């Protein structure tokens, strides 16, 4: 187990190095110039352009820029955003809690609905319920989520007036200093009556939109995994022994059926953390996904490089953990490997 762990960890190191190289090169290949792009109609004189490029070190040989960048990364320095002139790491740390909070809520939404739906669909295989769940899951899996988000805002927020349109907080009635950056926690810490409810209300629609695909995936996975387990000998035996169906399903089948589901959930976590670009764009959610996209359009090289490194790093780590977890809970692989 330890050997496996070390081997997997060692395997991620070259990935990081390659990632560093790829982001650096890709970012330089994007045509356009971070200084030109912000000047608008007004433009900029060639002399001043040259001066700024020099100050930003953009006129140095590309290999030297790469060495500096790599050296900075080794020392935990992700560079300074060209646009805001603040350290990339600071910007990331301000925005990441919003992404994390949204990803967490979307995942909770997906799990809480997806697992029971999948289990029930498997138990009542062939029933109307099964067909409904599977149809809904298929639609959810096939959903263009930018479109889905727009429709939900129009219907839920504007037409029915039930949920807030966008943002993270009711800004008219509440104000508190961000402590953790997580609105759910900060609103509780603030001790203001109703603030927590407002924070939850703002999370509902984005969580549904972001959670739609994981929900569909989890429901499908749970169902097929459950079907497989229900066909296994030990479940049949348990049934034959006359154990109550609830006990059979709940205790014996579910526990085993959930192993692959847990893996899928883990993988979805990495996916969601990677920045829900579209969801964040639609809901004006101040997260890292939207930030990365904007950094591309601003040609903000350091923010883009640093941002991709940080997010990809997190994805790699999460996937590594899931990988190890999968090995840990799945006896078949452990014995085999």
């Amino acid at each position, binding site marked *: 187990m330890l050997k496996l762990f070390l081997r997997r960890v060692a395997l*991620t190191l*070259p*990935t990081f190095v*390659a*990632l560093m190289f*790829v*982001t650096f090169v*890709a970012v330089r290949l*994007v*045509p356009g110039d971070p200084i030109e792009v912000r000047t608008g109609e007004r433009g900029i004189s060639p002399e001043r352009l040259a001066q700024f490029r020099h100050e930003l070190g953009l006129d140095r040989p590309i290999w030297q820029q790469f060495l500096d960048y790599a050296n900075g990364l080794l020392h935990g320095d992700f560079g300074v955003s060209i646009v805001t002139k603040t350290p990339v790491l600071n910007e990331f740390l301000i925005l990441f809690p919003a992404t994390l909070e949204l990803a967490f809520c979307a995942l909770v939404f997906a799990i809480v609905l997806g697992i029971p739906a999948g289990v029930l669909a498997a138990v009542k295989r062939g029933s109307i319920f099964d067909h409904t769940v599977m149809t809904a899951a*298929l*639609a959810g*899996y*096939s959903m*263009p*989520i*930018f*479109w*889905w988000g*727009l*429709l939900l805002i*129009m219907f839920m927020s504007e037409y029915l007036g039930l949920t807030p349109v966008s943002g993270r907080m009711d800004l008219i009635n509440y104000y508190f200093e961000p402590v953790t950056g997580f609105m759910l926690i900060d609103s509780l810490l603030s001790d203001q009556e109703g603030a927590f409810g407002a924070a939850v209300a703002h999370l509902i629609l984005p969580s549904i939109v*972001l959670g739609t695909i*994981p929900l569909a*995936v989890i429901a*499908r*996975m749970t169902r*097929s*995994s459950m*079907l*497989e387990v229900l*066909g296994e000998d030990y479940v049949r035996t348990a049934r034959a022994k006359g154990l109550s169906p609830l006990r059979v399903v709940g205790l014996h089948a579910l526990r085993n059926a959930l192993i*692959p589901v847990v*893996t*899928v959930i883990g*993988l*979805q976590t*990495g*996916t*969601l953390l*990677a*920045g*829900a*670009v*579209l*969801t964040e*764009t639609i809901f004006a959610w101040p997260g890292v*996904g939207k930030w*990365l*996209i904007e950094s*591309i359009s601003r040609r903000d090289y350091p923010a883009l490089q640093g941002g*991709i490194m940080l*997010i*990809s*790093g997190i*994805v*790699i780590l999460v*996937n590594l953990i899931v*990988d190890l977890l*999968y090995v840990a809970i799945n006896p078949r692989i452990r014995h085999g490997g």
Partner: protein
Amino acid sequence: MAGDSMAGDNMREGPAFDPAAIAMVETVPPEVSSLRAFWSAFSENRGAVLGLMVVAFIALLAIFAPWVAPHSPVEQFRQFVQQPPVWAGGSWQFPFGTDAVGRDVLSRLIYGARISLGIGLSVMVVSVALGIVLGLASAFMRGVVEVVVMRIMDVVVAIPSLVLAILVVAVLGPSLANTIIAVTVVYLPRYVRLVRAAAIAELSKEYVVAAQVAGVGKLRLMFVTVLPNCLAPLIVQAALGISDAILEAAALGFLGLGAQPPTPEWGAMLADSREFIRSAPWIVTLPGLAILVTVVAINLMGDGLRDALDPKLRRS
């Protein structure tokens, strides 16, 4: 492990590594069922047949667009700007209404099917071909080739997929061809990994060893002996990959980075008309619906394919 190959493959908002797909591979038998057996298994699944019919219908529309579409997709009828569809008080001249500059929405949707299916198919063909080559190469050569290929795939997977696609489009410039390249880059790793895992699993089997002993050449061993036995999961993945590619391309179009005007790509149509969601909702709703229906149909078909090709699920 059940073979829900979609499980870990939610690439639309980011990458994921997919042990489910790899585990599934081991359950595929060496012999690919004959066409007839396959069809009888496939046609048992009513959803899959329905999906196939819808896909065929959309494909026919796409192929015969110039004859089917009532108007040119780019002609602007200035006196009929933003006309509602026929069920909302419009006229039969423009059954699905007109868009912001008076183009017939129905004709644009029909021509758009060409673009979207075209993107989906091109991405699928290119990435399957590249996936086979790279996957087989790493499975057979191991060593440096495998390390390099798989590490690159790891990097691709680690970068959020939409961010990577946007980055590729930003480098190459927004156009239809570059959309295809960008989406291919994003989806390549799943094919490479799948082929490699399947091939490695096959390599240890007796018939491969036998062939090796019999002195079959390496290329022949790769493409003639091993590859056919890896095809089943690949076909399933490819079918589902078409729908994912359509969605990813639509997302790029939605962000204004896909096909350029006046190409009637569905995602770009949606992005162009986003502002009319209140005043002329059909211009926004219909392209979204077109994407949804197409993708659902392809996924239904893909599910059917998987069930038909994966005997384990068929049995249960």
